[in-house]
């Protein structure tokens, strides 16, 4: 305990800023186990439920389903559940700083809060996008293997000349799978990843507002899920005005090749809807950033 002088500390150059903060946030996110576990959970839930759903649906298709069948959305249905897991990562990435008290240490090292917030947001956005895209593409490709050769369910009795003589029809095989080259498919699969990423960014922003893990997760699920469930109980003339603005319905238009929602209600187009959804997240994040800079840590 005698030498305190820093032998290996070179003289300071320039000014500490965003690049260093990015490296720091990358170190932070990769050095805690919860990141690995929650990312893994997101992939397992999204891809697992997508696979189950695609498998189940491919065995239950009837002729009447063909008109409304969406081979992309049906292959990525797990996103609905995956978003519930990825919001946990979004919330924890920021609220973890507060619940552990690390925020005070972080801001004592780098008091320029805009830099800290921006770097954390950037690193997390990249991680969330990679996770989301990995989940959507994997789900898509697995789903298409089920939809490649679908045996349509037959509804007996099938009339064949003589009345009341049910004759089992020959099994009908159809190819319902699609490829990334088909119209709007690539956009929709990328859209699935984007939707997951923006869901978690919404939770990130809520965590900045609330500084509380459970509160941020609850609020995110309320916004994403509960608002959607509530629309199911709205009278039709209300729903006609409200439904398209609901975060889940607006944001989810992009990850399918057919419109999502009640046929008789007008919805946003894929990119407009996704824009609305992203705007919700952006508003929350901007609000969170303002409070992050102003509030006592």
């Amino acid at each position, binding site marked *: *305990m*005698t*030498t*305190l*002088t*820093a*032998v*290996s*500390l*070179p003289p*300071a*150059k*320039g*000014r*500490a800023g965003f*690049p*260093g*903060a990015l*490296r*720091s*946030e990358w*170190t*932070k996110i990769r*050095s*805690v*186990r*919860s990141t690995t576990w929650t990312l893994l959970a997101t992939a397992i839930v999204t891809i697992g439920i997508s696979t189950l759903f695609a498998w189940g649906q491919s065995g239950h298709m009837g002729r009447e389903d063909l008109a409304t069948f969406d081979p992309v959305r049906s292959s990525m249905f797990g996103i609905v559940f995956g978003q519930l897991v990825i919001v946990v990562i979004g919330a924890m990435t920021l609220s*973890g*700083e507060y619940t*552990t*008290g*690390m*925020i*005070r*240490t*972080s*801001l*004592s*090292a*780098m*008091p*320029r809060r805009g830099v*800290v917030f921006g770097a954390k947001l950037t690193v997390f956005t990249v991680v969330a996008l990679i996770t989301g895209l990995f989940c959507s593409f994997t789900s898509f490709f697995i789903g298409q293997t089920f939809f490649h050769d679908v045996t349509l369910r037959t509804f007996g009795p099938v009339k064949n000349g003589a009345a009341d003589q049910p004759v089992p029809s020959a099994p009908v095989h159809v190819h319902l799978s699609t490829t990334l080259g088909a119209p709007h498919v690539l956009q929709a699969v990328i859209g699935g990843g984007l939707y997951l990423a923006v869901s978690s960014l919404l939770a990130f922003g809520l965590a900045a507002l609330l500084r509380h893990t459970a509160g941020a997760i609850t609020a995110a699920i309320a916004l994403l899920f509960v608002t959607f469930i509530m629309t199911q109980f709205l009278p039709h003339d209300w729903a006609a005005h409200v439904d398209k603005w609901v975060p889940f319905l607006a944001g989810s238009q992009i990850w399918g090749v057919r419109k999502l929602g009640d046929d008789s209600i007008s919805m946003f187009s894929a990119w407009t809807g996704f824009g609305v959804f992203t705007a919700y997240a952006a508003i929350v994040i901007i609000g969170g950033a303002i409070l992050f800079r*102003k509030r*006592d*840590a």
Partner: protein
Amino acid sequence: MIEAAGLTKRYGDKLAVDDLSFAVLPGQVTGFLGPNGAGKSTTMRMILGLDAPTSGTVTVNGKPFDAADHPMREVGALLDAKAIHGGRSAYHHLLCLAQTNDLPARRVGEVLELVGLSDVARKRSKGFSLGMGQRLGIAAALLGDPRVLMFDEPVNGLDPEGILWIRNLMKALAADGRTVFVSSHLMSEMEHTADHLLVIGRGRLIADCTVAEFIERNSEQQVKVRSPHAAKLAELVTAAGGRVRSEEGTLHVANLPLERVGDLAFDNGIRLHELTAVQASLEEAFMELTKDSVEYHAAVPAAQRAQATAEVGAATEQKAEA
């Protein structure tokens, strides 16, 4: 060098820090002393920009902390050793801090060596003992080889060995020409480490002096007198130039020798039941000084309080002998 001017922090209708102006100079250990809740931590948080002052300013080495090019090279602070993510290893904790200030990664190994945590560098800090956590916090403070160091109650909960280590570290840092600012609610702790003292109570600056001055000013000889005619005696003593504090028939007289108090009583025919010389310890002086500014008083019956004071006095004497 830390300079505060009119520093004030208000939470709702409560003034946590009230118009503090002071300078903490390099090359010495400055103790920041005050009872719990006096506003020490809030002041330190404002120096670091964690809390925004309601009014007033504070600068570090001439600049607001957040204007420093490399903040960690200006100030290294240990405010709360538990303010870390327990799931992260000591190495990664320090690495992520070093990266924000473009410090080389090898500096992390160096400070871990310095505080004696090299062997547990890859262990998650969740499992660290209090002392290890404190060492990790000090490692973080030393990362940027800063010119100013701040420690908030650094010896709280440490074993004697750890306390000695931190004391020596602070002295060495000051001897190195750095500014060392350390808070404590224990005067006895400051006696051993600090050169200069800032004393605050209820957010206000009570004293700003060297430790030697503080001792000289506050540990004067006092005389304790018990008399059925205390009020009359008090008048006489005051007239003779003494300072008197009275409670229930007992007077504590300062600034007047014991013999003079006894003579005054005799000359005026006042009956005395007790006449004792009392040496106030630094701890008592500090308590006396901050008595009115203690935020939370425990409800202790008078008799018990007297006994407690006697015990404290005895303990202090023993320490002095040792």
